């Protein structure tokens, strides 16, 4: 379970998160929507400990992410992260991309790591691209590679930061399909997304973030069918 209490985050003098409270239960799929610059991506980075926080706390399965005593590298193994820019490692083949972290972070044997990498690549539909270098893959394939890379660490949670925003429109579908599949398998997911269709169909809950706070959080039916706050109504009408 992820528990966020009174989270505040500053970039210099600029406050990007202004007191966020949020619980994500195991097995839940939470989508976070909102305008660019509202702080949604920053929230993910804070959960993964990639950005320091100034106030409040984030606990993952009871462990404080930002406590000095926390072994963050260890904790991060529980949370797979997929970025907007897929960030495949260009000097490694698809298989090596996925096998590297299990090998050097989890200390798996080479063979074990290769097996799990091949399995995860198969899982996202890249079973025939094991020895391809990222430069030979399309954006959609590279993003699926990134998902496989995160899954190979066998995380409890998956964090998606606008995983389809940088893709050409015709490549969005294959990545969303991979994410849907994960959700069906019961993975706990937090997805910052601009894909309203995905948020509506796949999520258990949707959070609307505006200027650093969670303005409204509810089931997709309520959020999209009966929005309460004016800000959310305006946001939804703008994107339609």
């Amino acid at each position, binding site marked *: 379970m992820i528990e966020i209490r009174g989270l505040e985050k500053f970039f210099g003098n600029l406050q990007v998160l202004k007191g966020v409270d949020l619980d994500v239960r195991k097995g839940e799929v939470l989508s976070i929507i909102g305008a660019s610059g509202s702080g949604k991506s920053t929230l993910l980075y804070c959960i993964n400990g990639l950005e320091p926080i100034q106030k409040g706390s984030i606990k993952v399965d009871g462990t404080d992410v930002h406590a000095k005593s926390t072994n963050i590298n260890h904790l991060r193994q529980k949370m*797979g*992260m997929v*970025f907007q820019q897929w960030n495949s*490692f*260009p*000097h490694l083949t698809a298989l090596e991309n996925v096998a*590297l972290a299990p090998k050097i972070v989890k200390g798996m044997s080479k063979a074990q790591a290769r097996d799990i990498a091949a399995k995860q690549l198969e899982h996202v539909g890249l079973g025939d691209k094991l020895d391809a*270098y990222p*430069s030979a893959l399309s954006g959609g394939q590279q993003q699926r590679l*990134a998902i496989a890379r995160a899954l190979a660490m066998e995380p409890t949670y998956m964090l998606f930061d606008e995983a389809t925003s940088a893709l050409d429109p015709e490549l969005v579908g294959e990545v969303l399909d991979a994410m849907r599949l994960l959700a069906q398998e019961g993975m706990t997911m937090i997805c910052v997304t601009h894909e309203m269709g995905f948020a509506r169909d796949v999520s258990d809950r949707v959070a609307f973030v505006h200027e650093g706070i969670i303005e409204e959080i509810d089931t997709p039916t309520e959020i999209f069918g009966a929005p309460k706050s004016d800000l959310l109504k305006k946001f939804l009408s703008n994107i339609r």
Partner: protein
Amino acid sequence: MFDYNFHWRPVLKNIPDLLEAAAVTLQVAVISMVIGILIGLVLALTRMHLSGPARWIASTWVEVARNTPALFQLFFFGFGLGAMGVHLSPYVIVVSALSFNCAGYLAENFRGGFQAIPTTQFRAARSLGMTVWQSYTRIIIPQVFRIVYHPITNQMVWAVLMSSLGMLVGFRELSGETQALASRTYRIFEYFAVTAVIYYAVVKIILAGSRLLAMRLFRY
């Protein structure tokens, strides 16, 4: 016009000596490059991530290495340090000066290489649970290495060419050996002509080797 009689025989007789000296040249260049790469890496990272005296020292090193003649640097490690009571052998003087110079030039190449890698690569590595050290050694540095591979090759050639300055501090690498042999026989032109050919060959071999190695190393 050509009333000069070329005498190649004494030179050709001494070619084994020259080749042996060429091996010394190559050895000095390789050692200096290895030291230069390691120090250059430290200098680049220091200039990028630290502040205060460490950064100042790194910057001064880089700028002095790049903005003064290599010969000046050689003299400094020779009789400059000698004045401070540090007496080094010609071998050590040449290796020190070359390492100093290479480190300065390579540091700038490394800095450019690091800056060419998107910071998101580092984030992605950390998000997988890799430590800072693992992220650098497994993800960042292999990519930087490809970017700086050509500059390193060029610097290697420079190191070979620069090592010829050794003859000015009495070091018997290829140039020093040539000078010593030439002054014994007064066949200066012939000796240095052959030496020029050897240098040319060494440089070409390095470049060809580098190209072959690149084909093996960089598959992506």
